[in-house]
């Protein structure tokens, strides 16, 4: 199977799986009480379920655009690994630093983390245009943070958008990208010296 077909197939399977699990949001979303009572899977699955159809549609549209513009050169196993790490980091931060947040769901926090991470990585490696991706993400989360601070409530349908999740995602994505790059640079310098 050629690469393009494989990527379309991956995207189609992802969309289908995501669509199927939307019916189980009560079982899968981040629910503080349930997480603390031992339902640990919610830390990761919270990012896959959504509150309403507009929430799901917008996040899905963003995920597809991001996949085909950023991630087509990223191996699937790597994408899954970073997805797992970032979703865990976002949920644990919400759990620890936002004690009044009872519940959370949605893919966008994770998307912010992945866009921030891969923008830095791919911008350094191949396409300088992707620095724009990082700038867009950070401009967006900063504007959201300022507006939230001034009492503005962002809504998708009737659902309140937890913009803090975007900020946390962008933060972890960017920090992880710079740490990884520093690590790889040190490793490659060491290898060069050994040669």
């Amino acid at each position: 199977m050629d690469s393009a077909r494989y990527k379309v197939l991956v995207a189609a399977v992802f969309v289908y799986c995501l669509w199927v699990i939307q019916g189980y949001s009560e079982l899968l979303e981040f629910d503080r009480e349930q997480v603390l009572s031992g339902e640990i899977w919610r830390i990761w699955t919270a990012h896959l379920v959504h509150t309403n159809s507009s929430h799901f549609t917008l996040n899905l549209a963003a995920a597809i655009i991001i996949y085909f513009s950023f991630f087509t050169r990223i191996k699937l196993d790597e994408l899954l690994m970073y997805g797992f790490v970032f979703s865990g980091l976002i949920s644990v931060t919400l759990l620890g630093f936002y004690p009044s947040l009872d519940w959370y769901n949605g893919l966008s926090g994770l998307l912010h983390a992945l866009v921030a991470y891969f923008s830095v990585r791919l911008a350094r490696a191949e396409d300088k245009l992707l620095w724009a991706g990082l700038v867009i993400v950070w401009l967006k989360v900063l504007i959201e943070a300022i507006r939230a601070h001034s009492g503005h409530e962002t809504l998708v349908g009737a659902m309140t958008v937890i913009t803090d999740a975007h900020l946390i995602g962008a933060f972890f994505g960017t920090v992880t990208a710079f740490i990884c790059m520093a690590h790889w640079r040190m490793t490659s310098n060491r290898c060069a010296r050994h040669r």
Partner: protein
Amino acid sequence: MRIKINKVCLFAVIALLLTSCASYFGQESRRGVSSSLVDYLYPDGQVPPKHEETTPHLRLPLTVGLAFVPSHKGTSFSLAEAKKAQLLEEVKQKFVGLDYVKEITIIPETYMRSSNGFQGVEQIARLYGLDIVALVSYDQVAVTSETKSAVLYWTIVGAYFIKGNQNQATTFVDTAVFDVNSRKMLFRAPGVSDIQQSSTLVEVDQAGREAREKGFELAMADMSNNLAVELDRFKEMIKEDKSVQITHRQGYGGGGGIQWPFLLMLAGLAILRIARR
């Protein structure tokens, strides 16, 4: 002579029977049922207090009570309590998913009847832990009249097969949403319906009842739609004029959501990337 007397008696009996039949057919009946929000909140001729400049304070998510305003005593016909509960349940289902609504509780009319005025509403609010109450008042007039084809009822068989009765139910419902603490009305929404259906003479009571129930169902559905519109308008209004103070309770929730501007920026970036390849 006896034959003459017999004939006169026979004609008298026939005339009497025809008169009773004539009184049975050809009448229009008009009945109504209503409940008044003002009478309920200000009973015994109480005068509403002067307008005060208090700002309602809503702490999200809200616990909402939904109830019919009790109808006047001695009303000839009214919806059954179970039917009212079913109608309120349908309204509830339309708004139950809202993020800023924690719970919608349907309050039985028997609870509403036990007391009236704002004191009564506050007692119920304390009982159910409500922040706001949505009170549904109504007015329905049902008219049953006969059409020209009702003349065939004289054949007796026609009463069973000819749809010569017209049953009309005109219904108006109005939902007013109040903040319990400040006693201020936040917004209101009306709903109307007009049902007409024909029936045979023997089915007239059943058809009339069905028309009245259907009238309530359609008016409540219309009111639900208007309520959603009014709710959106109310949200926009309080953002601008700050006439209602909104705060979040400890323990809120929501989702991570992408919005159109960001989506368009991402799409632009994707197009740029594709163009550069």
